[in-house]
């Protein structure tokens, strides 16, 4: 089941790379975070870690529901461009995405030998880190760049819950506060943008 969820995590990120509409991108980000939350719940239950279960619930509530909702409201408020065509052509992205995946899968080979539990997931989370970097790179507009940043955070979170046997609760809460701060900063940025226009 965890394999299935991690596949869904990577799949939603790859589909997000090819979308050209903002609301559809928010939907894929929401699905991505939702699978991440379910993964945290699943892994937390299998290693019997209450902190991870709480983190999973917070992930689903904040990242899968609240942040896409807030971003959608913001985009309606500030009249964002909703057509977001990637700067990298699809033909090149089709070659680039498998190349990144193959590269990172081999890159994580030495690390995989060190970690005995859930070794594959490390490779997937590093590759999703690179893919969300690509998502940030291939767009000019600010909204998809934010989504790229947030999915990079998702990838790091996945690395955190799979590579270690549960991070300390304090660190995870700190990450969530960071995220909220980032959203506040983004909001301020938009206000500034609006003033300039």
């Amino acid at each position, binding site marked *: 089941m965890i394999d*299935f969820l991690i*596949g869904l995590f990577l799949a939603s990120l*790859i589909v997000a790379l*090819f979308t050209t509409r903002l609301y559809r991108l928010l939907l894929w980000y929401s699905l991505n975070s939702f699978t991440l939350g379910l993964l945290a719940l699943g892994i937390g239950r299998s290693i019997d870690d209450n902190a991870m279960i709480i983190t999973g619930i917070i992930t689903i509530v904040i990242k899968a529901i609240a942040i896409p909702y807030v971003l959608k409201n913001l985009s309606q408020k500030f009249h964002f461009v909703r057509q977001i065509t990637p700067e990298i052509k699809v*033909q090149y992205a089709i070659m680039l995405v*498998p190349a990144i*995946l*193959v590269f990172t*899968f081999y890159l994580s080979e030495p690390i995989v030998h060190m970690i005995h539990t859930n070794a*594959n997931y490390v490779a997937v989370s590093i590759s999703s880190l690179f893919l969300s970097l690509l998502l940030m790179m291939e767009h000019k507009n600010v909204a998809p760049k934010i989504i790229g940043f947030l999915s990079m955070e998702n990838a790091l979170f996945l690395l955190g819950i799979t590579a270690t046997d549960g991070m300390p609760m304090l660190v995870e809460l700190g990450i969530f506060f960071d995220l909220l701060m980032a959203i506040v900063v983004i909001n301020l940025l938009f206000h500034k943008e609006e003033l300039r226009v």
Partner: protein
Amino acid sequence: MIYYFGTIFVLVLIAPILLSYIKATKMLLLFKRPISLLQGYRNFSKLLQKETIISEESSAVTRWAPFLVLSPLLVILFFLPPVTQGAYYVSFVDAFTITGLISLSTFFLMLLGLDSASAFGGMGSSRESFIAALVEPAMVLTIFSVSLMAGNLGIGQAGVNLAEHFPKEHMASFLFAGISFFILLIAENGRIPVDNPETHLELTMVHEAMILDLTGVYLAIIESAASIKFVIFASLFASLFIPFGYGLIAPLAIGVFILKLFLIATLVAILEVNTAKLRLFKIPNLLGLSIVFAFLSLITFYVLGA
């Protein structure tokens, strides 16, 4: 033996019902009064009674091509994975044969479009060849990676292996192959993001443009070929990617299989209602996504073993 032929018979019978079911579901979702599930049969009998007129410009190709569109698809029906335990199946037919037979049928359909000597038919044929050329590599890759997971290159044997030992440890690459195959199912059958089967508008036509000049019996044959193509793809999806219910007793297993077919048809209908048709030059993007997923499924299987 009886289950083997019985399944093929049921699949042929259910093919028009499935397409009518998709249409009915879409109409229901759009708050229209849905058509009857037997509409496919009604259309078929109506077309059989109609006069068959052949254009003076067309050659003998129009007379024999409709049969050659239908017959490769009928041959594929015999090669599909078994539905119940103890049924006969052909174990040695691999992905290349299935893809080859499908493209043989598509080839004759394209000839049929060209033969009517109208600009419309030629346009439809060129678009169809454009889509078919992009579908084939992804289709071979997808079925190939599923066969690798199942441990056998033959489609029938792969279906049995998947049903008996479901590859839980390869769930991620299995999911990628499933996504890829679903996109192919939509593209090959000309459903909405790729082609709109309901309109006769110039801009949206691929399949309808090629068969615009056909009437009567020939049109009936082509329409049943289209429905059988959908049933082939849906049953491949059902037995390779949803391999459950195989071990049940025979009548129940066939019932579960038919339920899975209707589930796939519902998925297609929901997708059709929720998406707009893509521009023709955006279709390579969609099919490129399917190739990415097929390739991804292979490399996750090889490198990660997940």
